[in-house]
């Protein structure tokens, strides 16, 4: 297309079209040229048989910047070309020199030369400083073709007069090629300024050669060399971190404010048993009653100034001196100046708690309990002790087929028929071997990884109203699955997810930071402080609940009523995360030039953005003039948009993950699409400070806090400020909560209920453990095994406790109706994913491919991927999952609910999906069995057991009247199929 346009232009310029008879025809003025380019002035060059400079031009003033881009186009007629094998080849160069030197001057020896010369047996593109050292591109010159040549002469050392000792040349460059020139040359000596640019021909340039060159264009930046706007300083979109007025302190706490508080308040409101439980000699508590920097809004002042005797403090009926006007003024100033406290004078009392979960884990003795059956693992001894206490007797071992199905579904989310040979495991020992086999299967990692994704409230969209997709979020899902596949030590799993970007290079793990970045993010929030604060609150709440099993949400607004967490604890924990934010992080295997694409993309964006802001401003749009990214792209001219979308799609194709990073980690961040995105300048983010937010209101800024963990866990060392420090503390073997919380979650996912039923709340409002010693023993085993999750699985799955039948017993039920002593296996409904995957598996339509971008059922062909690979866009999670209680991925989910509603049978009976699956299931049965065995085969594939005579008879009877497809649909609706028995 471009060539056509040029050919047309050439025709007009160089060939007089015969004027046909009629009116005379002529021109008025020069060509009118499009401002966005598209045409060029061409010059024809011929050889003279010797050294000649046919075309040269002087710059307005000698150039002395650090880099100069020179661009021109070049075309050789085919007839002009002779190649070295049958001629002596071609020569033409463009030079950049300090001087002109006249028609025959030789511009070489430290002078950048860009052009064509003979390279062995071909004419090739060349760059050089001295004729003795020529560097060639692999590209051979062809005739009748227009080449675009772009060269950059630059200085290795910046500064006026320094030599232009670096030369890069691109042939037909694309916007993405900044870091990929076709030729690069360096020189020891080179010219230090550029005054003239010209073309040279030589001995090899013949008189009858027809060489066309376009006018030469100059630029000082890569983007401008493409006719794009010059970069501008980015518009500062980052607001200053929460601005806090620093007033000159006039009040000294110890000398001025303290005596007043002491005189009027402390008599009643201090110490461990204060009046009305309200304590004012405690920094965290007094903050609940005043608003730093705003005395008018402070409850304490309102009470002191109140004229209502019922409210006034100190109470007027006491023979207590009232607070004087001068004293009130001091207190007001003290509050307005930010509530400076003297922590030496009034230290915060060490927070202490005798709550069980905060005490160190102590490895208990394994109880010695008489038992009818030998214990298979110490787990049995602990459960036997509890049964003894409650007077219950354990159920018998379940049938082998029940156990095969239970283990397969529990560990992999697939029915036993998915594992050929498992049906032959008819002893405890062979089942033990199968545990290991199942634990090593990818299916195990896909099922147990999904549990973790519930905790991580992981999703592939931002949530909130725009709910833009996160196309790179799937890599975190794959990271989690891989971690379970590898039995990654749990402490390492914690470190990677909280601080994977900060870890040393060899163990760096950016994918893992998808845990933090899974927070929702409102793209329609103009207030950047609220936008950031919302994300940080989500991150803190999720981190605390996931790893520590504590509910910190309440402390966001006020010192916790029940648990020993203060509002200051909350924001101190937040301080570990303040200096980072979510974004698309480039992974280690991203090509080196990606950063240059991202830079160019932002430069182009910023230029157009500032142009549009200026236009709107001059059109009278009131401040602040806001332009959303979509409008910026819409405001680009064709050339800009083409370059921009080339850059954007190239960047999008690079491996990256929706993760979390601060500026310290030096991670490269690719753009993401948002209406009002977070400011992208990580440097400013790195300088952000953390403030207590009164009543949880982002706009009510309280005193600054430094990073620290809740005080009840003891003092935080001064040097602990990074997320790595936080992760190290959480992952420490001595932490009272981390190991307990994790083994309890594992227990819950095996048995349906944890030893602590409130698996996300180990605080005082949670339930107490049913087996505190077993919990501690497992926690100790976890740490001692090197934090091996598989080790805990084995201890549980090998036990008699796990292998009991679900047989009901009235006497046991009478003594222990909630089955706290685990006197039987409690059947429970499978999770949504296991229901769908099991149905696909028995129908032979499950595609077991692991990993990669999510795939929806609409895109599925003959086979369907496992449910964990279905798209997880918030508000659009697949119906088949939501109907069976998949979480909405908004907040961390420790335990799924089980709902039983009639929309479920409607789906299971009538949906196209279930009916298609039933047909495939029937096809499979027909291929596997003879007609008289259809029913039994279908039942065995689904339930992993043989049909009883009565069942076989019922089903055979059904098949008299109805199709096998119809029977298959019935079987997929059975409670036994949907439950883990």
């Amino acid at each position, binding site marked *: 297309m471009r060539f056509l346009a040029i050919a047309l232009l050439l025709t007009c310029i160089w060939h007089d079209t015969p004027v046909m008879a009629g009116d005379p025809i002529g021109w008025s003025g020069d060509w009118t040229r499009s401002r966005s380019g598209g045409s060029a002035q061409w010059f024809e060059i011929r050889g003279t048989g010797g050294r000649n400079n046919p075309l040269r031009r002087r710059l307005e003033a000698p150039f002395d910047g650090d880099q100069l881009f020179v661009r021109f186009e070049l075309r050789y007629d085919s007839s002009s070309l002779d190649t070295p094998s049958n001629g002596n080849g071609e020569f033409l160069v463009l030079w950049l020199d300090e001087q002109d030197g006249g028609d025959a001057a030789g511009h070489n020896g430290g002078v950048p030369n860009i052009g064509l010369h003979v390279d062995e047996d071909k004419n090739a593109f060349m760059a050089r400083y001295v004729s003795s050292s020529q560097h060639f591109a692999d590209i051979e010159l062809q005739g009748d073709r227009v080449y675009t040549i772009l060269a950059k002469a630059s200085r290795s050392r910046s500064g006026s007069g320094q030599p232009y000792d670096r030369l890069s040349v691109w042939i037909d460059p694309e916007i993405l090629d900044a870091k990929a020139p076709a030729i690069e040359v360096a020189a020891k000596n080179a010219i230090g300024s550029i005054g003239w640019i010209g073309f040279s021909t030589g001995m090899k340039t013949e008189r009858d050669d027809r060489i066309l060159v376009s006018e030469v264009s100059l630029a000082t930046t890569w983007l401008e060399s493409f006719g794009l706007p010059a970069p501008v300083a980015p518009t500062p979109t980052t607001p200053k971190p929460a601005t806090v007025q620093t007033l000159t302190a006039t009040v000294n706490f110890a000398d001025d404010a303290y005596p007043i508080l002491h005189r009027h308040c402390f008599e009643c409101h201090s110490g461990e048993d204060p009046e009305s439980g309200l304590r004012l000699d405690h920094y965290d508590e007094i903050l609940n009653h005043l608003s730093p920097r705003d005395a008018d809004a402070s409850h304490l002042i309102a009470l002191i100034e109140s004229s209502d005797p019922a409210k006034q403090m100190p109470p007027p009926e006491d023979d207590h001196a009232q607070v004087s006007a001068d004293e009130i003024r001091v207190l007001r100033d003290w509050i307005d100046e930010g509530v400076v406290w003297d922590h030496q004078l009034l230290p915060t009392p060490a927070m202490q708690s005798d709550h069980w979960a905060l005490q160190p884990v102590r490895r208990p003795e394994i109880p010695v309990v008489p038992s009818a059956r030998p214990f298979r693992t110490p787990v049995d001894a602990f459960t036997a002790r509890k049964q003894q206490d409650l007077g219950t007797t354990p159920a018998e071992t379940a049938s082998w087929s029940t156990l095969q199905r239970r283990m397969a579904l529990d560990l992999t989310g697939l029915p036993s028929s998915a594992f050929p040979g498992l049906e032959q495991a008819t002893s405890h020992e062979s089942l033990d071997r199968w545990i290991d086999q199942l634990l090593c299967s990818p299916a195990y990692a896909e099922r147990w990884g999904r549990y973790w994704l519930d905790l991580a409230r992981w999703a592939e969209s931002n949530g*909130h109203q725009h709910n833009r997709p996160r196309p790179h979020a799937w890599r975190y899902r794959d990271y989690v699955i891989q971690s379970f596949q590898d039995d990654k030590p749990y402490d390492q799993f914690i470190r990677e997810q909280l601080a994977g970007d900060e870890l040393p290079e060899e163990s760096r793990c950016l994918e893992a930071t998808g845990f933090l970045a899974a927070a929702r993010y409102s793209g329609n929030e103009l207030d950047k402080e609220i936008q950031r604060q919302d994300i940080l609150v989500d991150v803190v709440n999720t981190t605390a609940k996931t790893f520590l099993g504590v509910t910190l949400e309440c402390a966001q607004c006020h010192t916790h009523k029940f648990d020993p967490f203060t509002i200051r604890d909350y924001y101190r924990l937040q301080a570990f995360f303040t200096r980072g934010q979510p974004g698309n992080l480039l992974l280690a295997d991203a090509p080196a030039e990606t950063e240059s694409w991202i830079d160019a993309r932002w430069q182009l964006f910023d230029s157009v953005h500032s142009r549009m802001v200026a236009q709107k401003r001059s059109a009278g749009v009131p401040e602040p003039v806001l332009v959303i990214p979509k409008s910026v792209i819409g405001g680009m001219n064709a050339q800009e948009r083409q370059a921009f979308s080339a850059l954007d799609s190239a960047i999008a194709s690079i491996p990256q993950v929706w993760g979390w990073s601060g500026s310290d980690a030096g991670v490269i961040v690719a753009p993401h699409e948002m209406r009002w995105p977070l400011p992208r300048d990580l440097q400013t983010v790195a300088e952000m400070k953390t403030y207590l937010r009164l009543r949880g209101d982002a706009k009510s800024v309280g005193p600054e806090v430094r990073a620290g963990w809740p005080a009840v866990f003891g003092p935080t060392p001064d040097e602990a400020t990074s997320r790595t420090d936080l992760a190290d503390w959480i992952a420490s073997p001595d932490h009272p909560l981390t190991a307990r919380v994790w083994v309890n979650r594992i227990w819950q996912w095996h048995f349906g209920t944890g030893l602590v039923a409130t698996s996300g709340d180990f605080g005082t409002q949670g339930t107490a453990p049913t087996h505190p010693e077993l919990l501690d023993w497992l926690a100790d085993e976890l740490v001692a095994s090197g934090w091996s999750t598989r080790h805990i699985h084995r201890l549980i799955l090998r036990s008699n406790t796990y292998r009991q039948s679900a047989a009901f017993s009235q006497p046991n*039920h009478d003594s222990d109706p909630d089955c706290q002593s685990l006197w039987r296996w409690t059947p429970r409904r499978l999770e949504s994913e296991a229901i769908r995957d099991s149905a696909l598996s028995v129908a032979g339509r499950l595609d077991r491919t692991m990993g990669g971008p999510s795939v929806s059922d609409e895109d599925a062909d003959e086979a369907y991927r496992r449910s964990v690979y279905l798209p997880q866009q*918030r508000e659009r999670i697949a119906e088949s999952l939501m109907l069976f209680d998949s979480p909405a991925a908004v907040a961390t989910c420790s335990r799924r609910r089980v709902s*039983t509603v009639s929309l479920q049978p409607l789906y299971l009976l009538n949906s196209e999906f279930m009916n298609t699956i039933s047909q495939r299931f029937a096809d499979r049965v027909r291929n596997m069995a003879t007609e008289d065995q259809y029913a039994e085969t279908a039942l065995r594939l689904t339930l992993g057991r043989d049909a009883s005579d009565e069942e076989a008879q*019922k089903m055979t009877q*059904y098949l008299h009247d109805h199709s096998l497809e*119809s029977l298959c649909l019935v079987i997929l609706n*059975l409670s036994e199929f949907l439950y883990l028995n």
Partner: protein
Amino acid sequence: MTSNPWIDRRRFLYGGGLGAGAMALQLLRHAEAEGANVTHHPATASSVIFLFMSGGPSQVDTFDPKPDLGVLEGKDVPESIAKTIPKIKRAGLKNLMGSPWSFKPYGESGIPVSDLLPKTARHVDDLCVIRSMQHNNPVHGPGECVALTGTAAGDRPSIGSWSLYGLGTANESLPAFIGMNLHTDGMQFPQGAGWGSGFLPSGFQGTIIDPAKGIRHVNMPEQTSEQQRRDQLELIRWFNQRHLDQSGGQSELRARLDSYETAFQMQTSAPELFDIGQETQQTRDLYGLNHPDGKTVGRACLLARRMVQRGVRFVQVRVGGWDAHGNIKGNHSKMAARTDVPIAGLLADLKQRGLLQSTLVVWAGEFGRTPTMEGRGKGRDHSPAGYSIWMAGGGVQGGQIIGATDPLGYVATERPVSPHDFHATILHALGIDANRLTYNHHGRDEVPTVFGGEAVGEVFAGHVG
């Protein structure tokens, strides 16, 4: 032979062909979502129709006339009012803009309504207009969560879920809380929290249906005959009953057995609900079904009435598109064409059938809009500082106005009402004291109004100040 397989199924169960049959029958009425089923005082409404106007209808162009705006056209908000506006983004202070519509009084009460909504205006004597709604979240998504759940995070139960939890189900063959999301082509994605059940069991969440298609999966596949379905259900029940017996009668498994019965009933009752061919032409015209702009909302409003007639407790009709940033006149005219006739039709129809007495109808957006112009267009930005909603039926004293905003319509100045107050008011109509309706979650008794909220007593007839 009847064509209703459900009836045959009953006959079979009554026949007691199998011992378990009789037992299953006793369990049939086991509620799917067993709520608190409490009333704290006599209810004035048994159902709610919540007309949620997503995007934020402008108060000064609908129910809160501000003639001063026209006088001050193009001027800045005076300092006296500017200083009262909460410091939230989007609260523009430049270029006051008068309403393109004029207001006139309607009905006996003489409550003024703008020319934008002439049909709704005729029912003004049944409306209680609250002009002083107020919160502080100016963003659609979180704002919608505030309006429907009470918190911006959207992690608590929706008002519909609380209502259902408090009331329990009245018709087990239909979902008790149904949502319809209409005109969702705009920027404002419906927020799942708006019909979510939060920490309440998921049986209390809203069921979203497409008014054109009905409840999903309610129709049997074409190749399935009724006889086959009957036999399928019998075989499923036979197996599931054995499984239930072996489990020692676990309640969840029993509920599952029952859910097949309910689903089966729904196969009949749901298509009947959606068959608006049973309605007269006059009724269909009343709802604007003959009009291209109004037919979508019209169909949903007509279905809402049919649902309420059949005992559905909470119907939420969400109409997207009120986000008038660029052009208030164009946008709101379009939205009025979509909603005015259908909503007026709903009020008229409920009234003529005597259903308005027992049905609380509420009309509200997530916030209102600024009295100022946004940028250089003729639109208005989001503003939660003072906006108007209305309530009707279900014990509401119509023909009254509660609360007021400042002379520009920017900030609520008299009797501010928070979304929490509003939720408590809805529950109050249902006979529920929001402070006493509790659900134990993680060891804590949660109430709908954990962040405050008192019912606005004046809303109701017979209220004694």
